[in-house]
């Protein structure tokens, strides 16, 4: 079953790689549907995510920092195989070292002593790895709850669950180095990560919402720029001012 799914993902990736270079990132697969899903996501955010994030933001700072460190440490697990697949040995060292130090000395990742030792792992996922292999982003669309994505990033999102050791232990309930878990653990961590992120961006998001004349397009631009930045591991913006003199 596992191998069947992996073959399907590999097949989709291959198809994507054959066609993606002809599609610009900004192109939409089905904008009308995406805009409808976006409206649903905004309603979900207003009704559930934002109130929860606002409540979360009122928690004492050490709890918030500890929670953020904990989820980041778990996310580092996904970066380890991706750094390996990308051949980025320096980042492989950073992500592996950071996870080992924070999980032990850092008390299950609630503290971040690795950062003080100079270990600064970048978050890497399969979408970024596919981009490093030269696969284009494909078209842009919006997923319910999960938000903005591209064809490549959606394939990557599915593939993530196959190579992420945390997903292996939780979703597939396989024991790994004595650690075990279940699906609820996986989605709880993902949910807390989302709340933590939303809480960090309450003011930014309010400001964007207040100042955008088309919020859907602003978020699309921000998502695509952020993915470019993560793929290139750089904070330099790929804009086109030079062409405009």
């Amino acid at each position, binding site marked *: 079953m596992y191998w069947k799914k992996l073959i399907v993902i590999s097949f989709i990736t291959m198809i994507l790689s054959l066609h993606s270079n002809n599609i610009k990132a*900004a192109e939409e697969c089905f904008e009308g549907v995406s805009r409808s899903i976006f409206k649903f996501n905004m309603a979900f955010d207003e009704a559930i995510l934002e109130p929860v994030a606002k409540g979360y933001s009122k928690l004492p*700072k050490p709890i918030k*920092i500890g929670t953020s460190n904990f989820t980041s440490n778990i996310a580092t697990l996904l970066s380890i195989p991706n750094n390996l697949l990308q051949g980025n040995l320096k980042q492989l060292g950073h992500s592996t070292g950071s996870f080992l130090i924070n999980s032990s000395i850092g008390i299950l990742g609630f503290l971040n002593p690795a950062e003080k030792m100079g270990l600064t792992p970048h978050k890497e996922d399969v979408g970024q790895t596919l981009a490093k292999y030269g696969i284009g982003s494909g078209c842009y669309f919006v997923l319910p709850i999960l938000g903005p994505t591209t064809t490549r990033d959606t394939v990557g999102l599915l593939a993530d669950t196959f190579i992420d050791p945390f997903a292996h232990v939780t979703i597939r309930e396989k024991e790994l180095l004595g650690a075990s878990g279940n699906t609820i653990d996986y989605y709880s961590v993902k949910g807390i990560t989302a709340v933590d992120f939303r809480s960090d961006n309450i*003011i930014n998001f309010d*400001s964007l919402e*207040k*100042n*955008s*004349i*088309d919020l*859907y*397009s*602003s978020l*699309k*631009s*921000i998502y695509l*720029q*952020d993915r*470019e*930045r993560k793929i290139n591991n*750089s*904070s*330099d*913006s790929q*804009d*086109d*001012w*030079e062409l*405009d*003199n």
Partner: protein
Amino acid sequence: MKKIKIFFISLIFFLYTLNLYAYSSDPRDFVTELVNEAISKLSDKTLSTEEKAQFIEQVALNNVDINALGLYTLGELRKSANKEDIKEYQIVFEKYFLKSLTSRLTDYSSSKFEVLEADIKSSNYTIIKSKMMPESDDPEIKIDWRIYTKNPDKPLIRDLIVEGLSLARTQKEEFASILNSNNNDIKVLINKLQDFVNN
């Protein structure tokens, strides 16, 4: 004697007004001076919201290349649209930009600012890399400033890149989406900007 006194007082006031919001011509010093003055004014609790908004508007009008930013955000349409429409667009874009900017800075909380390096891209552009350090425990924010240096005596800000996200590019892509959905009709964009300004 009284007339001479009034003349001198007027002259001093005029020269002071000219120097107000005028910063160094060196891009690095220009950004440092501008941001430090902005931090000082915006975190000054004795100033009213209106006074802060007025300050932001004056600084933006004198130091941001709003005309070029307006044309950039219009994309390819700036080459094909008629001059009258572009003129109308630029007038409303300036109002939109100033309103949006003052709104974004309303909830400003005090931060420390540091310029890291200046990266000269060409004779026209220098990127000033900087970081903002909030006084709370929030993480520092990397900000790159795209400074237009075609006139070396008068550097102008054309873009801010916050943690890799270009504000100008975001704006351009937002406008492009509106234009694409409306047969590239610049009037629709002008009306939307006007609605934003009026509300």
